[in-house]
């Protein structure tokens, strides 16, 4: 990404500016702390670029409106926090099954319930993966800085358009409200991916046919490709079909398309993992405190590495296994009671112990507490 200047901005503002570069021209939202700035800024920014903003009556409506706009051919986004993210799950499942590109930002705050609205958390990790009912494809990205939020927002749209899958952008209150200098993209030199349109005439068009990529071509309403979209299981024509064979093949394709295109969404970063005896698996804002703790431990001679996940779902299983090859222990710092640790444990198996450093008091990690955790595990 080439730069066109730097600007000091909040994480929520980075989402806004990057979404416009990515081609977002529709936003539906509902006020909720700590994501509200995204709606406020887009209310003025979208009209400047010919886009449309609407404040809906609730979170369910915002999710549905974003999907409707996307079906009409417009790149669309909605943003929320925990309580609203719970409400979006119903229509998020609709987008997953009907394969409608849409980006959902969740600026995580302490839950459950109303919880602590202005306190950061990473309590929605599992909800991002399993929040809607049924097995379903979904991608979740979790940037660790404001600058990375800018890049991750553009990537979220690209993934969503390329694979026709809803993408969840998981920030937390710290990232959403923190201000950092951000390298702004030069709109002309950023890779922007748009959904692929029909390559055949309307009479030959099958809206859910696999063209070999497992990602069907997509026509917008109003383009002459009249078709049916339903949240029922459907065959390649788009019409309901409740037979076991159709259900099986639809499920295999919508899940399989993510397996087949891992390079499109998988995004991780390995640092000093080759020699590491202890590996930290980090993600989101706690990665910043963890980095500082790792540096200190390394200066003191400890062989500690870092494997940072920007893509949380689908879980980068193979990349983690490679990064953790030589490690005798793994540590996962997270602002919840160990949601991602469960997944890391699953991948590591019984041979390598996985320890959590957890906070659920609404406060952020200090480097020192992560450092203490490293020392304990390292000498243990």
């Amino acid at each position: 990404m080439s730069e066109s200047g730097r600007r000091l901005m909040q994480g929520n503002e980075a989402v806004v500016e990057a979404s416009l570069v990515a081609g977002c021209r529709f936003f539906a939202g509902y006020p909720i702390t700590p994501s509200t700035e995204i709606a406020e800024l887009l209310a003025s920014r979208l009209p400047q670029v010919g886009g449309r903003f609407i404040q809906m009556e609730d979170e369910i409506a915002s999710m549905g409106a974003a999907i409707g706009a996307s079906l009409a051919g417009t790149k669309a986004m909605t943003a929320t926090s925990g309580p609203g993210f719970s409400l979006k799950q119903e229509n998020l499942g609709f987008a997953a099954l009907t394969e409608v590109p849409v980006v959902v930002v969740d600026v995580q705050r302490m839950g459950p319930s109303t919880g602590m609205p202005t306190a950061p958390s990473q309590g929605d990790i599992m909800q991002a993966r399993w929040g809607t009912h049924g097995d379903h494809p979904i991608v979740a990205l979790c940037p660790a800085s404001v600058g990375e939020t800018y890049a991750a927002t553009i990537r979220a749209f690209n993934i969503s358009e390329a694979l026709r899958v809803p993408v969840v952008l998981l920030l937390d209150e710290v990232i959403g409200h923190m201000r950092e200098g951000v390298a702004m993209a030069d709109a002309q030199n950023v890779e922007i991916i748009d959904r692929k349109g029909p390559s055949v005439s309307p009479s030959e068009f099958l809206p859910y046919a696999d063209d070999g990529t497992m990602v069907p071509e997509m026509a917008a309403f109003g383009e002459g490709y009249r078709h049916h979209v339903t949240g029922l299981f459907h065959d390649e024509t788009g019409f309901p079909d409740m037979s076991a064979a159709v259900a099986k093949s639809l499920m295999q394709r919508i899940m399989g398309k993510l397996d087949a295109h891992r390079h499109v969404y998988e995004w991780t970063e390995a640092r000093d993992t080759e020699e590491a005896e202890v590996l930290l698996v980090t993600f989101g804002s706690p990665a910043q405190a963890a980095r500082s703790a790792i540096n200190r431990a390394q200066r003191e001679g400890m062989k500690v590495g870092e494997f940072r996940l920007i893509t949380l779902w689908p879980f980068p299983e193979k990349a983690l296994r490679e990064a953790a090859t030589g490690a005798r222990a793994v540590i996962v710092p997270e602002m919840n009671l160990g949601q991602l640790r469960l997944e890391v444990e699953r991948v590591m198996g019984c041979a390598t112990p996985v320890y959590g450093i957890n906070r659920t008091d609404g406060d952020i990690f200090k480097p020192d507490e992560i450092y203490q955790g490293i020392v304990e595990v390292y000498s243990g």
Partner: protein
Amino acid sequence: MNTHLRKYFRQEHLPHIWCPGCGNGIVTAAILRALDRLGWEKDRTVFVSGIGCSSRAPGYLDFNTLHTTHGRALVFATGVKVAHPNLNVVVITGDGDASAIGGNHLIHAARRNIDITTICFNNSIYGMTGGQYSPLSPTDSVASTAPFGNTDRSFDLCRLVEAAGASYVARGTTYHVTPLTKLIERGFEKRGFSFVEAITACPVYFGRRNKMRTPVEMLEWQKDAAVPITRAQKMDPEELAGKFVIGTFVDIDMPEYTESYERLLREHASDRGGG
């Protein structure tokens, strides 16, 4: 089927799933007749529905069709219309879909006065799930979840939509097909939010339990209980007990949502670009 309406159907997806005696086909044909008179193009028209028996109608129609989640048709339709204001957007919904789980969306779509025509197929019951009472089931009527009679009060959805600010509100029945078609046609023509409640028959799950065992008895009930608005205005509330009013309740011109937003776009567009 009238031959001139045949072109609007996806005939390969017929027959429909509706029970014998169901009135949904009558409402669907009225919608198509109205649309045909106005010459609406198939490519420029989007049908959006929620969940329930009536919400299956768009699947049979050869337009851009979107079968969404329970109660949410209007929010998807709002996204389509705001993103693409030049499309004709029609919502097909049922009494449970529109008034219970989707009630809030109905209020706010009417309040925005967005140019969407909503046709509510009111069969007084949740038919798809086998006959549970809806907010529009009459008090004392029997349903699978009201075996001793419905203790809920039924409410008047047209008055709700009127109060919420729609430009056009009307009610018709499947007995009065010609007036129903005209009401729908007027709703289509109207710029702004249009709401047409179409009273339809569910003999299998509503009629059977409520002393109207046959489709004919249900149509006779529609004929007898319907009071045209001009006559109703001269009647006392006591005389109207057990009846319902049909006709046009609201037909006024008010600012339409997407037009107001397009004006805002013209006034505030700048050349700042996307970065």
